[in-house]
């Protein structure tokens, strides 16, 4: 189900906790599983977590599948729905909104031709609204694929960024 490389990474997570508390590694393990699916998945459906992957991770950690499912559905960075190759999350919380966050989201929406929460028909982009990313001073901010944070996203900066994300 997962590559040897991912399993090695999960083993590293597991090693951080006492041997009889493997369940502590569930967040890291799900993150690694999602990362592998995002980087190898060819379609939006193959880039998100699904029942089989969650069950695999749970069995690997020797915890009940529903316990891993609880975690996967609790945190919104675990993609449980089909997602584009580039998941763009724009912060629209109040401080960002005051400094153009909403405008940035609308600009991207217009540019990609998708509404917030949608995935483009070619499966390249998913646009989401996000909660505070702790960088209000850099607003507007957006997050690409959970990991890469982009600050001061004016329309020009967005054009440049989208040009990179091909």
């Amino acid at each position, binding site marked *: 189900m997962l590559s040897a490389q991912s399993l090695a990474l999960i083993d590293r997570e597991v090693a951080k906790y006492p041997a009889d508390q493997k369940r502590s590694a569930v967040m890291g393990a799900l993150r690694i599983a999602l990362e592998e699916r995002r980087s190898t998945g060819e379609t939006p459906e193959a880039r998100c977590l699904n*029942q089989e992957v969650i*069950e695999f991770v749970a069995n690997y950690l020797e915890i*009940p*599948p*529903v*316990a891993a*499912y*609880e975690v996967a*559905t*609790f945190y919104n960075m675990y993609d449980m729905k089909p997602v584009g190759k580039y998941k763009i999350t724009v912060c629209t919380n109040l401080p960002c909104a005051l400094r153009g966050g909403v405008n940035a989201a609308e600009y991207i929406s217009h540019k990609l031709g998708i509404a917030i929460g949608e995935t483009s028909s070619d499966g390249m982009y998913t646009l989401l609204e996000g909660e505070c990313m702790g960088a209000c001073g850099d607003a507007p901010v957006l997050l690409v694929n959970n990991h890469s944070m982009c600050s001061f996203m004016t329309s020009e900066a967005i054009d440049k960024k989208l040009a990179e994300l091909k």
Partner: protein
Amino acid sequence: MLEIEIDGKKLTVPQGSTVMDAAHSVGTYIPHFCYHKKLSIAANCRMCLVEVEKAPKPLPACATPVTDGMKVHTHSDMAKKAQAGVMEFLLINHPLDCPICDQGGECQLQDLAVGYGNSASRYQEEKRVVVGKDMGPLVSAEEMSRCIHCTRCVRFTEEIGGFQEIGMANRSEFSEILPFLGKTVDSEISGNVIDLCPVGALTSKPFRYSTRAWELSRRKSVSPHDGLGANLIVQVKGNQVMRVLPLENEEINECWIADRDRFSYEGLNSAERLQKPMIKHDGKWHEADWQTALEYVVKGLNGVSRDHGKDAIGVLASPHSTTEELFLAQKLARSFGVNNVDYRLRRSDFRADAAQQGALWLGSSIVDLASAKSVLVVGSTQRQEQPLLASRLRQAVKKGSELNVIHVADDALLTKLNAKLIVSPLALVNALAQVLKAVVAIKSGESAIDLAAVSVSAEAQRIAESLCGAESASVVLGNVAQHHPAFSELLSLAQEIARLSGARFGVLAEAANSVGAELVGAVPTRGVFGAAVSAGLDAQQMIAAPRKAYVLLNSEVEFDSYNPQAAVAAMKSAETVIALTAFKAEGLLDYADVLLPIAPFSETAGSFVNMEGRLQTFNGVVRPLGEARPAWKVLRVLGNMLGISGFEYTSVEEVRAEWQGKGDIAPSLNNVLASVSANVQPAATALVRVGEVPLYQADAICRRASSLQATRAAAVPVAHAAQSVLDAAGVQSGAVVVLKQGDGQVRVALEADATLPAGVVRLATAHPTTIALGGMFDPIEIKQG
């Protein structure tokens, strides 16, 4: 000890108590939903908010530890306002569909809303809707919008059930309770979540919408299934059992019951119930009146005894019968001159009979077993044989007890094991002997059993160290050990281990009244309370050397016997088979000649003696169905008609007084054998069967409980074996093969199973698809399908 004042009442409580504990100890009720005394503290419903002096805000009583000098007000303005506020929030998303809700009338939310809420709602907006879930045939989760997210069900499956089968997915407004996608809730004690659910979200699938809670009368009873003797509340309407709930008894079942206890009542109302006596003439069954049927029975018994002698008659009684029934059955048989009486149909080794000095029992109370610091369970498919006891042992492990297992399969016990030895049934004696040898070495003792041929494995050493090192320890033999062809040797070894290590030892009684049957002499070698009797044949001998007539009390030999093949053949060869039964069973219709309808436990007064030797009496909760009669009355009339004196009882209490008058229970319980012996040679390697009784095939009632039969545990059995066995037979996992024992064979899929030792094929017995086979732990052959 800490001092606390609750609503002006001063009391002292031990360190670590919560405000909720303290309030309960003085009888002050604090409203709550998520709190449950047997579950961990979640403090997520917030209903138990109380005012604590010097605290700025109300605090949850269930999660607030008592501090010295604390002053708590449960009914102050602050507390009342907090409780009313919480109630308003809980009701925001609750559908308020009480009139069509199955929980209506016995709903904690309904009751507390009346007691602590406001009379009208201020909430005008839309309520959230949660789609129903499929949790299997027992628990209904159709109306999950009613859920208030107390997570009692989640905590129950995780903490008591041992495996978290239910979880709470998503968060905040989108949270919902669900089993893992596509899975059902399969725990053998899952029905308890219905009792735990404080609202109508989880309800009983077989019971729902059949009647209203206030139309039911509550009657006490005792579970007729496993040897635990769980206390029940049987709820009745219109002379029909509608539902079964647990009756709390901390010493036996705590506040739980197994699904078998809870849902088996459907069997009592099944269409297969025998309502009139029936007689077979020329291969056809005819209904008859009682007089005719009893005359037929008397004629048959007299005929066989005249033509072939009294020894040609055998009595096979089920240990699910009441003590009074078993007492009368053996009294009738022996007074008539028949010494062949036995209740141990699934036993295959009777060599211990000669050395037995009392009734076999648990060897301690259930509470003592659960609080022992070290327990060794030998040959027990625990979760199938004793679902509640298995759960109790899991709780014991959490409290620091060491659980050791010697078994024929590495079953998931959902708990941490100190040590385990998983061996073929042929090596079971040797495995236990290893432990004995290690105990002998640790204690520098001596054993009467020759252990020279035994080499101690590391796991056996660990088991021995655990037993010898613990301040209290128990060795118990489960059903697999009791049905095993070397039971007497296993019992001998357990006795020696117990003697040397200071542990207690005993057997986990297979059925509700196994101990009762031992006590009242439903065995061929001992009479009531061990009175001397002229010995008769045991169950195995009665089958091996077929009798001319059999009297069956609650027995269906094709499901209840060690070797169904031989048992059915013996029945078919008999001149007459007289069955006292509550059910028109297919097997009985085939081989019996007369069926006398008797009342199951719900329709007769009686008693069971559970595994710890506790006598529990009960009354019938409904009238007998149709023309069925309590078996004690049938046996009494048979006694009269056979012209035997001493059968002039007018009530079941008289019968009970008679057997009780012959001795006391406690001194008659004794597992110690007068002499011990065991052949501890490592066994020859051969392919043997591991044929346990499936969870819901153990007795006649649960075999006919339709909802239990729809569970995964009741699925048609599939054979399992280690990969090495499959390789040796040259079959792929999942292939259909022919399994052969004696003259019988069955076609069944054979799957690889890493939890089984080499040399074993595991295929359940006591199932319609496998009764063509032979002994439960006898050799078996695999042939290509």
